[in-house]
């Protein structure tokens, strides 16, 4: 048990930044807009968070800046995909490149600089529950907020009026339009919120997780987040489980490297990617019909009100 608890706690910590990005992507994809640019958004958010924290000395402001930066860059994606009805795959890839390039350019003189970010604290009362306490309730505030976010998103999507509207837009925009829901407004709203959360995910990495700026510091977490959305079949709770699974593998390989196993580091580094691929195959095999269970029906399809299909 004593060996396991630190690894599980590290899994939660390592899974949290991915979880923010995944929750954002679930929102965007539920509205029918696929955003493949998470990797770039996370990098851009990571730099924005780092530099705002460095400038103001406040990690809270840094995280807010990361959210704002993510949403701002996603505006390009939303305009191209929602207003102009462009190809979401291409726009997402462009976003990933653009965000990565911008963060590298802006952060060119700050590589390796450290900042003072958020510190962990024991959550009152709950931290004393055996097992659960040390694993879930001895972290920083952003981890606690992520718990809240997952449960409230789950409630929001499946149990509230705006959540139903959101799903309607993603499943059948024409019907939603006929019901008087503005498809483009809903898509803009949730795509931007999703981009903001991806920025926040990056901000968590730089402001809380590593408390420094390194070029390309997300190391593929944005792409993994896209895969975990599919693993979670567009449901927040299930996706959260996937995030912790990823976090667990990540924490495990770091620990094994630190302990100096005979397995070479590159092979250990491969594990999270292999796991993501394995998980993706597993979920795809389980949905027999060829169409992924729970994928929003109009995901990736632009909606033009004046055209009939």
């Amino acid at each position: 048990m004593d060996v396991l608890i630190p690894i599980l706690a590290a899994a939660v910590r390592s899974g949290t930044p991915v979880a923010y990005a995944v929750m954002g992507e679930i929102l965007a994809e539920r509205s029918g807009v696929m955003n493949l640019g998470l990797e770039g958004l996370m990098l851009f958010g990571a730099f924005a968070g780092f530099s705002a924290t460095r400038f103001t000395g406040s990690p809270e402001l840094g995280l807010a800046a990361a959210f704002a930066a993510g949403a701002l860059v996603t505006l390009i994606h939303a305009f191209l995909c929602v207003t102009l009805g462009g190809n979401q795959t291409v726009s997402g890839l462009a976003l990933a490149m653009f965000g990565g390039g911008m963060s590298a350019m802006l952060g060119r003189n700050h590589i390796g600089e450290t900042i003072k970010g958020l510190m962990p604290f024991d959550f009152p009362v709950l931290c004393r529950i055996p097992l659960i306490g040390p694993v879930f309730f001895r972290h920083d505030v952003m981890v606690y907020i992520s718990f809240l976010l997952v449960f409230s998103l789950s409630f929001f999507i499946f149990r509230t009026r705006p959540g139903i509207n959101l799903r309607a837009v993603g499943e059948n925009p024409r019907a939603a339009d006929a019901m008087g829901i503005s498809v483009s407004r809903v898509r803009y709203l949730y795509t931007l919120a999703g981009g903001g959360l991806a920025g926040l995910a990056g901000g968590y990495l730089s402001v809380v997780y590593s408390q420094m700026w390194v070029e390309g510091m997300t190391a593929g977490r944005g792409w993994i987040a896209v895969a975990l959305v599919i693993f979670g079949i567009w449901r927040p709770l299930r996706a959260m489980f996937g995030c912790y699974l990823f976090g667990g593998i990540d924490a495990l390989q770091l620990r094994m490297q630190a302990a100096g196993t005979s397995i070479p580091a590159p092979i250990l580094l491969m594990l999270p990617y292999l796991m993501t691929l394995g998980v993706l195959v597993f979920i795809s095999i389980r949905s027999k019909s060829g169409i992924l269970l729970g994928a929003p029906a109009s995901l990736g399809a632009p909606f033009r009100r004046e055209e009939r299909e």
Partner: protein
Amino acid sequence: MRGWRLERRVSPSAFWSASVTTFSILAALALGGLLMALMDVNPAKAYFEILRGSLGSWYGFGETIVKAIPITLTGLACVLAFRAAIWNIGAEGQLIVGALAATAFVRYSHIENSFGILCGMFAASGIAGGLWGAIPGFLKGKWNVNEIIATLMGNYIALCLMDFLLYGAWKDPMSMGFPMTAPFPPGARLWVFAGRLHAGLFIALVMAVVIHATIGLTQWGFEIRVIGENRKAAWYVGIGIMKNIVLVMFLSGAIAGLCGMSEVAGLHGRLSRGFSVGYGFTGVIVAWLAGLNALLLPFVAFLMGILLVGGDTLQVVMGLPLSSVQIFQGLILFCVLGGDIFRNYRLRRPHVTKRWEAA
């Protein structure tokens, strides 16, 4: 905007298409300049350095072609897959695996004959890259596994695999700790001419013609296009979806694998970490810019080569990170995508009969 409508153009003219693309790229460069100015970089100087570094001398011109070779090959890999509407974003991983296979062949085959080695490297890299692509293809065809994610994960896994070999068994003891293999024997080098140009150029050009002819003229090419345009229709007329997806991904991966071979055997003469500076991703852009037209691809790759060589110059002269080129790549893609709408649609204000006109 109220009252304006997007109206589909029935068939956009070639002139209109070309001018939209040109305007899109110009717009991307203008936006890039604006962003550079905001980031305290003099855009005029940056663009001047890009042009001077790439086209300002014979050496720079040669370097631009040297860069255009791998971009053409990865671009062709993407064209083939994208024509079938399969999003192979894994050319990067496939080219790494191709380079690994070529290097393995040099290290372990012990063939003395140069022609034999080169043929072996050619086959090994093509097959290895092809299999690396065929795996996601199989997963896609069999269980509808999202190929974007699967190929991307393949990139990272290939990168780790290369690190494993370069920091381990294959490391050159003379390299002072740099992750690279020992130089290949002269027999395992492609023909090098005019400075740093190498025979990969001809592989790339021949491939462009072959791919173009295959897609445009053969029955198989037609099947691929039908799958790409309308997968359901392809299924109804009895085109084997599963078989073709695996085949397309195999060939796409094989072209990328050849690209890896041409880089290590033609340009570098050894396998070193970072021998590919994101050529797989650049391939996605050039494929899209060329309108998925294989014949057009070498020209677009040359233009992209200007940007990449210019990026190297920017790094040396102005101290900008190499990945700053990604800003331009992203912007160009955004603008071309946005421009596509104006290619296929026109903005119209439909004539609304006003009440007093009707009366």
